[in-house]
């Protein structure tokens, strides 16, 4: 390291200094979003989803893509309090937390590799990686063979749904794409469909809407990270519905449990007493 360079130079340049491309609040006048007037141009010409994607990615998307992303939120807005994130919303309701807490906790819970925003992110990563590897000449069956197995089945986010319970959202998702003019399907969706068909034949597993949605958004030029950022909080509507219904109920009113409804599998009753060897030192 040269003597003229201090080890903290990187941080010194950032102390009391912000450099940003996102925009700026102009106190008493306006706010700038990616170089555009928020209260002028954006307000007059954009819908909410276009504004969201513009702020997050810097990219102005078309109204029909905005509608596709908007409508895809329907797929994660089931107001059924048995679904994990919604259960937390209902619990927040009986607990009388603020609605913001219910929203946040539900969205945090859905940041899960099994479902929700993280599952879609992982599906996008998977599709992107497998497409790249296939382009290098690796056959699909070899790609699938190389995927880690869970209980004997390939662990592929977005493509591990047992076919005996078909994802009821796939048909409407494909129809949504067709109706909005996203036809024929792009290369990522075609790959995802081919992968799904192969998994169905070999393992009885199929694609779910997270896999389809991830592939669709990859075809629209988004990266997996951008897909994650756009998808964050998609379960909030169902969570809030469950919260609102339970708000004001007595404490513990939602699905209360007897002590014995939890199965204890730990050590039998014991004492901290001197016979416990760990405590004798």
């Amino acid at each position: 390291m040269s003597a003229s360079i201090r080890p903290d130079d990187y941080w010194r340049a950032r102390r009391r200094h912000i450099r940003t491309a996102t925009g700026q609040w102009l106190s008493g006048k306006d706010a700038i979003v990616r170089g555009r007037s928020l209260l002028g141009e954006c307000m007059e010409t954009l819908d909410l989803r276009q504004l969201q994607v513009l702020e997050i990615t810097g990219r102005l998307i078309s109204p029909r893509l905005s509608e596709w992303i908007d409508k895809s939120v329907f797929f994660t807005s089931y107001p059924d309090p048995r679904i994990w994130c919604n259960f937390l919303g209902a619990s927040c309701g009986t607990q009388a937390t603020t609605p913001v807490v219910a929203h946040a906790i539900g969205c945090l819970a859905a940041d899960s590799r099994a479902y929700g925003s993280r599952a879609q992110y992982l599906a996008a990563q998977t599709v992107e990686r497998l497409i790249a590897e296939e382009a290098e000449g690796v056959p699909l069956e070899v790609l699938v063979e190389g995927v880690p197995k869970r209980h004997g089945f390939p662990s592929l986010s977005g493509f591990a749904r047992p076919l005996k319970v078909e994802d009821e959202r796939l048909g409407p998702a494909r129809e949504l794409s067709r109706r909005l003019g996203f036809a024929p399907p792009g290369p990522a969706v075609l790959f995802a469909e081919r992968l799904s068909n192969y998994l169905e034949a070999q393992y009885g597993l199929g694609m779910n809407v997270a896999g389809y949605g991830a592939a669709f958004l990859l075809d629209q030029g988004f990266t997996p990270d951008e897909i994650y950022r756009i998808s964050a909080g998609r379960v909030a509507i169902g969570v809030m519905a469950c919260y609102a219904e339970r708000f004001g109920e007595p404490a513990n009113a939602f699905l209360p449990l007897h002590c014995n409804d939890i199965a204890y599998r730990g050590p039998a009753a014991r004492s901290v007493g001197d016979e416990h060897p760990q405590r004798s030192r």
Partner: protein
Amino acid sequence: MPALPHPEFTTRICQELPTKSNPFVARERRLYGYAIDELWGRCTLSEVIYLMIGGELPTRERARLLECLMIGLSNLGPRDVGIRAAMTAGISKTHEELLLPIGLLACGGSNNGNTEIALAHRYIREHLQHDPQDLGATTLAAHLAPTDTPMPGFGSTYGSEDPILTRLANACIELSIDTPALRWGQKVVTTLAPHGHGWRFPGLVAAASLDLGFGERESIAVGQLARAPGIAAQGLEQLHHPIHHSRFLEDEHYERIDSPG
């Protein structure tokens, strides 16, 4: 009253025994078999934390190690990302019950955050049998930029070694001879320190957790529990200050790059 046909959850940690008159109300609660009444009468908090994470009460040596670690990390300073988040929320009058969870979540993540604790746990576990010199650390260190992370859990703190974390690691090591991961980490730090790198929070928590016998995921909880007191206290303190004590950075220090999408 029969139990549910399929239990809601199974657990090895906590057993609740109902009262005779009301199956919803617990008359007794046991943690890994120990009555909570006995634990509150005879154990320290760090012993009970160890019990809940590890499944057994700790030896006195391990209890002291956990306590030392948790005291050492209990307040990482007002510039720590978690504490600063709680302070920012506090002074902007966020609901008081949210300050601790906000701070704990803000210091998550894989870049010096709680997720990196698990990554460091795995890295140290897999390399514990290797001499740090064999890892090429010396060569590596000479070419490190201040912003680089040479390996999970280790790196620079604003371009330098963090001397407090190094002292805390030493203090933990002095409490127990059974600290192979912490000792391994100290050797790594000896190699890295002349080049401005050393322990980072995730590495120290991961190494100590390994020496305490905790798993990869459990080590994340150790880090969160350790830093919680400072986050809570410093966030709450700011609630008592007027909001105008926190001033926005002036426009002349704000550099906007416009490139319409």
